């Protein structure tokens, strides 16, 4: 338990009895000694004999003490103790490391005054991170760094993302002069320089045969095909270059880059910036995308439904719907098992069966825990949709939906939020566990190797615009409304990628 509160009756030296309520440090998970100033602020006293922080009370003021002293004190302590720290630590580490490594970065090209300026802004940034509690603006900045890093798909390291934004907040696409030339653009006269760091390249001392062997082993270790390029995998490319002796670990040099705003397209040549701008739009997988990669997920979900005695029927027409949950049976549109959208539909209907229908729990009381029950139609749709979406996203299918309404998800009622979140994530994890087990079984079972259909390479998802997606889903109006609330939309997408990136790190 975070805080164990106890009541007791104490006797003063003068023999007078008084009642106290105190936080028992031995049974509380949260250590309160770093928070004595908060306790004092809310009228708590220190009992030197019992070695506890306590509040006096009597029968008349007990409820008042709980409401006006204990509650706000605990709330303030919890706000400090429960604040998310991982992200902060990541930025702090990166800033710290960068500041420390500045000493060793080759700086023959970087003017001294620029180096001083960058160092100063990095140190400011570090100080901001340390004082994060007081700085909402900083959190906003970090979100920009994070979105810059993940959404725009540049493959910039965290270091360089920070350096770009510290030097030019408006930058979107940053490259060196020679790389701009490859993109058919010239850097304008007097374009401001953004200094970035890159690993220092060396001449490899290895023979060609040795290099080829290292490369072959590296590809094998990372499950890559020989023809794969590491262009879009900067992290892996960096690692391979270290192994090949082309760069040294922690050895960097400065190089000048320029934002696209200060470059000009060369006339008559292909305009890559136009394509980049399109790419900046959020990536949406086509909902009717046929992708063999989804087949094992689809089969695992069918297997899951069958294991719970839920019948699956295929139908040619469901009156405009893609699937229906009927408590004990599910109908989905007839498909070949390789349709990404219909796989999500299957996950959506299974989520309904667990969250909102009574069949599964009536057969197995263990499944009572996954049952939320039916509220309004809007609410149950939201819950099933987000569950299906998360299952698909967990396996790399970016089937974002524009029909998520955050408040509706938990009925707009804050108190039910915890229960809904707990239950929905439990349902997601239940499906994930079954799919993982299914994949493992398929991989390990030598007697039943994967069918040719299941053992195929991933086809890259196509890009369509969010508007097209909304139109396809028939939620154009909702989408336009959601678009208006663009800040929330951006936040959702940022978080989406953040979670996906974190998952990838764990894998």
């Amino acid at each position, binding site marked *: 338990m975070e805080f164990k509160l106890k*009541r007791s*009756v104490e006797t003063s030296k003068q023999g007078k009895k008084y009642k106290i309520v105190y936080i028992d440090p031995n049974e509380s998970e949260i250590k309160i000694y770093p928070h004595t100033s908060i306790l004092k602020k809310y009228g708590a006293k220190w009992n030197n004999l019992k070695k506890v922080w306590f509040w006096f009370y009597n029968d008349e003021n007990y409820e008042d003490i709980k409401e006006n002293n204990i509650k706000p004190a605990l709330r303030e302590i919890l706000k400090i103790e429960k604040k998310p720290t991982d992200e902060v630590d990541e930025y702090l580490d990166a800033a710290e490391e960068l500041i420390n490594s500045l000493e060793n970065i080759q700086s023959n090209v970087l003017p001294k005054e620029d180096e001083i300026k960058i160092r100063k802004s990095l140190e400011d940034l570090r100080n901001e991170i340390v004082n994060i509690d007081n700085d909402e603006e900083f959190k906003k900045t970090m979100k920009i760094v994070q979105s810059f890093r993940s959404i725009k798909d540049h493959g910039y390291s965290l270091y360089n993302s920070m350096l770009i934004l510290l030097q030019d907040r408006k930058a979107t696409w940053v490259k060196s002069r020679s790389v701009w030339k490859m993109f058919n653009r010239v850097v304008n006269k007097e374009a401001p320089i953004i200094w970035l760091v890159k690993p220092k390249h060396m001449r490899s001392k290895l023979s060609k045969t040795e290099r080829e062997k290292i490369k072959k082993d590296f590809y094998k270790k990372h499950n890559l095909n020989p023809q794969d390029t590491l262009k879009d995998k900067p992290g892996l490319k960096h690692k391979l270059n270290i192994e090949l002796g082309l760069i040294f670990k922690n050895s960097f040099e400065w190089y000048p880059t320029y934002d696209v705003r200060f470059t000009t397209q060369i006339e008559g040549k292909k305009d890559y910036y136009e394509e980049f701008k399109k790419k900046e739009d959020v990536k949406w997988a086509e909902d009717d995308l046929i992708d063999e990669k989804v087949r094992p997920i689809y089969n695992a979900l069918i297997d899951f439904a069958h294991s719970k005695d839920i019948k699956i029927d295929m139908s040619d027409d469901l009156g405009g719907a893609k699937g229906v949950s009927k408590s004990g049976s599910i109908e989905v549109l007839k498909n070949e098992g390789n349709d990404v959208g219909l796989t999500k539909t299957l996950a959506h209907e299974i989520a309904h069966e667990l969250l909102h229908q009574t069949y599964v729990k009536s057969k197995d009381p263990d499944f009572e825990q996954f049952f939320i029950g039916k509220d309004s139609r809007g609410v149950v749709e939201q819950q099933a949709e987000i569950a299906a979406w998360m299952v698909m996203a967990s396996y790399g299918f970016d089937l974002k939906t524009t029909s998520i309404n*955050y408040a509706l998800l938990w009925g707009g009622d804050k108190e039910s939020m*915890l229960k809904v979140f707990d239950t929905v994530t439990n349902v997601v994890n239940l499906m994930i566990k079954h799919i993982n087990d299914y994949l493992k079984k398929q991989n390990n079972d030598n007697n039943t190797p994967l069918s040719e259909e299941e053992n195929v390479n991933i086809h890259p998802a196509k890009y369509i615009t969010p508007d097209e997606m909304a139109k396809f889903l028939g939620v154009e109006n909702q989408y336009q409304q959601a678009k208006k609330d663009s800040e929330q939309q951006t936040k959702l997408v940022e978080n989406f990628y953040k979670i996906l990136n974190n998952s990838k790190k764990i894998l």
Partner: protein
Amino acid sequence: MEIKETKEITPKDLAIFLGVEKEYNDALIEEIINNSLLSIEDEKNNVID
């Protein structure tokens, strides 16, 4: 097979996912406080009259 196993998600992941981490955190804090207040114990051998 290119699809890999995935990690378990937590309710907090879901909250971060939806950009409502702050609201989720606040709800969680209130629940902890209420649980703490509901389970206040009287110290043994220390009878309150």
